């Protein structure tokens, strides 16, 4: 099962670029956040505007000698609301390279079909068509049921929404003293050439995430990984004095020392 919708784009130079499309969940999440921010902005604006209007309406009426000044103020307010609604997306998608606050939070990004950053024109087109996409959930259905997950705005502007690449988090897990001592010994006694980058990645992933795991699962998993790692590097049996966790830490260190990154 492919959880993620990937698609490749071939550049004129025959370079293949692979994107992971954002998916309906992240896009809905981003939109929910953005609309809450917009809603808040709109409320603040309306409150301020009505206070100002209330103060000014008499002054302006006498100034312009027009009875319709109230209507004008309402019209201006509506216009500002419209610009707020479209401008919000255009502004952020342009200056933040395809991200709005919501998209940033949901870790997605709008780009051109070929992966380049979008232009202000494309951002505007997307933003203007958003109202159509929102009505009757047209956009949501198009994202769910089309291959490239394009809503009307994306189709017209020639854009796609992809998962923002997340650079791998720096290793920030504690490594015990005994692992530091064990590592050189392992390097000396065993054969690390059999341990492939994929295996190393799994061990690193375990060490990184073990804190969030339940105690029981952690005990089982670390023992299992340690056994598997032991077989790979050709060790007779696990060193009796150390826990599986320490053994895995030592392997992590030893691998790095053997193949400096």
């Amino acid at each position: 099962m492919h959880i993620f919708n990937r698609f490749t784009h071939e550049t004129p130079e025959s370079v293949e670029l692979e994107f992971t499309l954002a998916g309906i969940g992240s896009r809905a999440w981003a939109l929910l956040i953005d609309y809450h921010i917009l809603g808040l902005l709109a409320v603040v604006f309306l409150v301020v505007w009505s206070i100002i209007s209330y103060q000014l309406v008499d002054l302006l009426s006498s100034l312009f000698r027009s009875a319709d000044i109230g209507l004008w103020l309402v019209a201006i307010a509506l216009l500002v609301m419209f610009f707020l609604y479209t401008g919000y997306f255009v502004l952020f998608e342009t200056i933040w390279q395809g991200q709005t606050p919501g998209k940033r939070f949901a870790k997605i990004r709008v780009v051109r079909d070929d992966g380049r950053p979008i232009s202000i024109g494309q951002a505007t087109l997307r933003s203007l068509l958003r109202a159509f996409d929102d009505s009757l959930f047209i956009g949501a259905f198009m994202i769910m049921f089309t291959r490239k997950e394009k809503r009307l705005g994306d189709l017209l502007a020639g854009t796609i929404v992809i998962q923002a690449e997340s650079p791998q988090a720096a290793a920030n897990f504690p490594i015990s003293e005994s692992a530091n001592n064990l590592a050189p010994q392992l390097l000396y006694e065993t054969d690390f050439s059999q341990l492939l980058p994929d295996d190393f990645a799994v061990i690193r992933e375990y060490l990184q995430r073990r804190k969030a795991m339940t105690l029981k699962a952690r005990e089982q998993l670390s023992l299992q990984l340690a056994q598997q790692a032991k077989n790979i590097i050709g060790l007779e049996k696990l060193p009796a004095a150390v826990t599986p966790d320490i053994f895995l830490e030592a392997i992590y260190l030893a691998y790095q020392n053997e193949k400096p990154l």
Partner: protein
Amino acid sequence: MSQSFSSPSPMQPLSIGNVVTAGVRLYRSNLKTYLRLALFAHLWILVPIYGWAKFAAISGLISRLAFGELVNQPESVSIARSKIKPRLWSFFIVGLRVGFFMTLIYIGLLILGIILGAIVGALLGLILGSSFASVGIGILTIVFIIVFLFGLIWFYSRWMIAEVPLAVEDGINATQSVERSWELTKTSTLRIQGVLLIAFAIALPALLLFNYLPQLFLIRTPSGSTAYWTIYLISRIISLVGGIFVMPFWQAIKAVLYYDLRTRREGLGLKLRDRNI
């Protein structure tokens, strides 16, 4: 290596949005299978007790099928069903347990709210005088309703996947399944609420069409009349039909959530390659 730099690695936990996306994609690629199962499940609802147990078991079955795909061990419906079948009544008990707990919590929160409200209201009345106190009580009521809803959702998200372990894992009974749900969700309640929110937003078109729209006609009809009962019956049937479409979506999301929680809490999928030397 075919894996691209920007794509999330399969062993890493999913983001909130990706949980929902994966649910939608699972549903989409198994549309016919899931819908057929959901149809039978909803027909079973009409039969008391035994039918309800069937409904719970078929819901679990859909989650099991979805989970199988997530771990790249897909099962046919008949095989999955044979695994689920002996546990029919356990599914019913899971439903009862969670329902019972939720009712208790509902009542408990309500009583707590009323007592607290009465005390604070009385205090406000003493301090501020009656005219201001009514404003205070108004604000208090709103705050209470929000806390009440959050409390309910909080507990619900702890038991949201209560039947999935029972559907997926071997040698587990109803009680253990509910406990597993409680344990797995321990550090993730906020994330689950995010998932619930997004899933709800995406299911909204279906909910509007099948559940809320028919209710609108009821408001305009005088209650007790024949017309009222006719419309009521029709709206119940329509919402049952809506359930057929929405239920597999929830079950798929639950399966993804369960998969993701196990990835986080138990390191599911972390495994070094097997070697035959």
